[in-house]
């Protein structure tokens, strides 16, 4: 198992019911598998970063990674 810290941003917090949580997943879990485990519409446009860098849905995560999931903001 690997531990991934999931940080949600904006209204995604209200959808998922938490802001930041460390969750356990099987080794080699991908980004999209983590996303699928959350109660967030998969069709909703999102920007996902791993440790502050953009990440592709198929990328495998490592123990201790931080995944930030945000709606697409466009500036105030």
């Amino acid at each position, binding site marked *: 198992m690997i531990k991934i810290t999931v940080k949600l941003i*904006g*209204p995604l917090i209200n959808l998922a019911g938490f802001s930041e949580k460390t969750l356990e997943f099987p080794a080699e879990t991908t980004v999209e598998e983590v996303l699928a485990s959350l109660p967030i519409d998969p069709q909703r446009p999102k920007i996902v*970063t791993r440790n*502050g860098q*953009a990440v592709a849905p198929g990328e495998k995560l490592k123990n201790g990674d931080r995944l930030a999931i945000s709606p697409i*903001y*466009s*500036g*105030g």
Partner: protein
Amino acid sequence: MKGWTGHILRIDLTSRTHKIETFGEEFAHKWVGGRGFALKVLWDELRPGIDPLGPENKLIIAVGPIAGVPAPNTGKTVVAAKSPLTGGFGDGNLGTRATEHIRKSGYDAIIFEGQSDKPVYVYIEDDKVQYFPADEIWGKGTYDTHDYLYKIYGKGVGVLSIGQGGENLNRYAMIRSLEGRAGGRPGIGAVMGSKKLKAIVIKGSKPIPVADPEGMRKLGIEDLRKVGEINKQTGWSIQSTTGVLSWCNEVAALPVHNMRQTHHPDAWKIDGERLNNARIATYGCPNCTMRCGIAIRDHEGHESELDYENIGTLGSNLDIFELDQVGSLNYLCDDYGLDTISAGDTLAFYADAIEQGAIKGDFRFGQAEMAKKLLGMAARRQGEIGNLLADGTMRMSRAIGSGSEAYAMHVKGLEISAYNCKFCPGMALAFATCPLGGHHKDSWVITFEIKQTKRDSYGPEKAAKVIELQRIRGGLFEFIVACRFPWIELGWPLEHYPEYFNRVTGLNWSLDDFWKISDRIYALMKFFWVREFPDWDRTRDYPPMIWFDPSNADKDGPIAGKVLELDKFNQLLDHYYEQRGWDKRGIPTRKTAEALGLKDEITEVEKYTKLE
């Protein structure tokens, strides 16, 4: 001609006289309204080199053809003048009830010229213009000013006012309306103050000229409902713009410590989640169903309406991570009528300059109480420090010297909004090429840059995206005059806007017609700058030099050890200029300007510089 009233109200504050002028289809179709009208009037009527705070400058209040019509987010008005902060073209927009009343009074724009000998406010009701002494409100903040005027005229009128900042010619003073709405970052409130014009009150009773009034009313009301529905479904208004703070902190783009740092462990204390939890009221502009203004109780107990830019510049950039204290600084800026972004950046620069030993002083990062005191001094130009702060970072750094120019966070004199671009080349380009200076308004490319491109790329795709967004945000939404949020935040299709425009005007324009007008306006804005600064070269389009300084690189986090590279940034500027049809100096070529129908403007600008 439908859609436009065809009238501009010209008010001479020196003689306290006014006249109503007419314009025809050619002007309307070429410049449309808002930013387009304001720019063209300032270009035609201002002599280059005039003192922006003297009687020769003109204050333009301009609306667009769909402004005030019931349709998504059409409550906005553009305010413009030659900027006392930058010396170039300056404008901004704000949500206000004045939008509807300007149109209902029978005008598409109001020009204020000259200078009153005594403080006045102006009351406009249709064709009637009255001048009243402002003795009882001169020296007061915008909240008291609005209350005073509402007591006389009722809350339904449109009010635009300045605070002590504008009165005392603080160079980043703004114009304020409603609860927390403000516009005119490049010192447009100071121009109003220089004319001793404390407030404009307007009430109109005429119908807005719409080609298809019934069709537009039905469509507009239905679309307002739909936008409100999407907002509910997505939950955007839960945090509004302030969700961006956490994201910037994650991706190392948050302004911290005068933008020397890009993230901070205490950022969560002032994030959108905390703000929403502290919410006591929600505010929005007229004709809006996705209200973005989240008000909290500040440290002193005032209601203070915050958005991301306020929190980023008055909070994290000053190392202040107490939300109620950020609320206090924001409230003071609103009351004094100061731009929160420039005010925050200017205080951050001052703290940094003290820390670097460039100037002596007691102010330190994180000191909220001292920051409040300094804001008051800046608004009133009290003492040497108040005067220094009131002039903004560019002039402060020139006065202080000792290498402080490198960390004065501005472009062309306008302080940079709340995105730290020490390793975001595309967003740095957006700031660098914004026609006002360091503003996020015209092009906000940072999420595209991080999600869809390699962050360290300086390729043509980033220049193309900056231009695409400038055409939409800095063009379309500024000349038809509507808020961009339904499109940019909720995905409301852009195709709706020609539909509204055509129902109002009876024309049959497409988005492509709009893009040509956007490009025309961008070319003329650049000509405006060039006429003021005939030695123009590309270095004026550079972001602050500290973003290129390896010693300023983050020590940890996602972009540790990385900064922008100047030679590559120059390549990115080349891509931008080439795609725009501008020369290597960043000036539109003759061919480009001719294709945009700027024949007379070419003749004028060539008195100052030769076009390629």
